[in-house]
């Protein structure tokens, strides 16, 4: 569905799988470019969601980044070695 124009040079992982991103790209953009179709499940019904607005409004791009839950993937630039996981349901405050 998405085609890259720039070379992908930044390595991170999503659910333990290696993913390449272009420098300056957001987590959400890199995941979409890598063919990921769902990054989270919703808090109430558990249905699957993918990044949508790409501008910080819809919260459908929520992922866990480096152990921090409920981060907006479209608002965070990928950095090398980042560990990204699916956000499954609501965040747990512990």
């Amino acid at each position, binding site marked *: 569905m998405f085609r890259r124009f720039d070379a992908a040079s930044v390595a991170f992982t999503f659910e333990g799988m290696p993913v390449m991103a272009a420098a300056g790209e957001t987590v959400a953009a890199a995941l979409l470019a890598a063919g990921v179709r769902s990054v989270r499940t919703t*808090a*109430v019904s558990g249905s699957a969601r993918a990044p949508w607005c790409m501008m910080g409004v819809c*919260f459908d791009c929520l992922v866990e980044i480096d152990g921090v839950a*409920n981060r907006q993937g479209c608002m965070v630039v990928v950095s090398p070695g980042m560990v990204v996981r699916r956000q499954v*349901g*609501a*965040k*747990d*405050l*512990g």
Partner: protein
Amino acid sequence: MRGFDLIVIGGGLVGGAVAFGAARLGARVALLDEGDVAFRAARGNFGLVWIQSKGAGMPPYAHWSRQSAALWAGLSDALSEVTGVAPALRQNGGFAFCLSDDEFARQAERVQRMHNESGGIGTRMLDRAELRAMLPQVGDEVVGAAFCPIDGHANPLLLLRGLQAGLLAKGGEYLPGRHVDAIDYDGGFTVQCGAERFTCAKVVIAAGLGSRDLAPMVGLEMPVTPLKGQILVTERVRPFLDYATHVVRQTDEGSVMMGDSQEDVGFDIRTTTPVLKDIAARNIKVFPLLREANVVRTWGALRVMTPDGCPIYEESVSHPGAFSATCHSGVTLAGAHAMALAPAILGAGLPPAMKAFEAARFKSGKINVPSF
């Protein structure tokens, strides 16, 4: 010109509850609402069904609130049945936290005073150990709490939507974008909205902050003023709080609402960082785990306050068939408004016990201080 048995002016929670309650009994009802330009508390409130502190110094208000608590489940069932929209009622008790020994002593004194004035409803003071047994996550700065078993909470937006949908399902009409400009009386009522005219046998003024100007048109008085409250809402988090509290609640869908301030600042609904910070800080003392929760929205809204904080319900002497209805707890009192007030308005009028809610009390000189 269309005619109705009852016209309710004001499509907030008070008007919505009365209109649904009346339509449910078979009356032909129209609910007129000014619309998005108005100040509308029904769309900005905290969602508590809160009984424990209501009516200190005013036993009829305490009893009315308790009656509402008892009628709420019936309202919730009626809405679910008629509309399929359940207002997410959870009525398993509520906590009012005390953050110092002083607060604890004052709270205990209030609980005792209300017990003496209005009878017991099972409210009891819990020390920290008893509180921790029920709410393990409370922070070390919490000294204790008052717990009232009949308090609860609901989703106020679903309630509002349910009341409107219920009105329509029972053959009533919801007419938004109608600012009532005048009400004429000739034995029946003619309600004017711009060039439109509606007639009715009975009319209820439940227009929130707009009531002040409408009431004198039918010989009533509703001297209400705005009192701002600010609220913060967090992202959805896993359930950790299964009870209502006076400052924080977790909704059925996981968001945490924190509130709410009481600011006498006129018709101003802006949010202000110092107040939001105070609210957040107090709630983090109560539940330290909230430190990890991200706030996703904040807003301000205006309560509809009478001089003593207690409701006004009254039938006009000069314009029989015209009623006033206002309060600062439209969620809490929705049960009573739909299931007790609406039938009385349609039927023989307000029972003698409700005389205490007439506006004449504001002229007596000794006005009670509002309590929440």
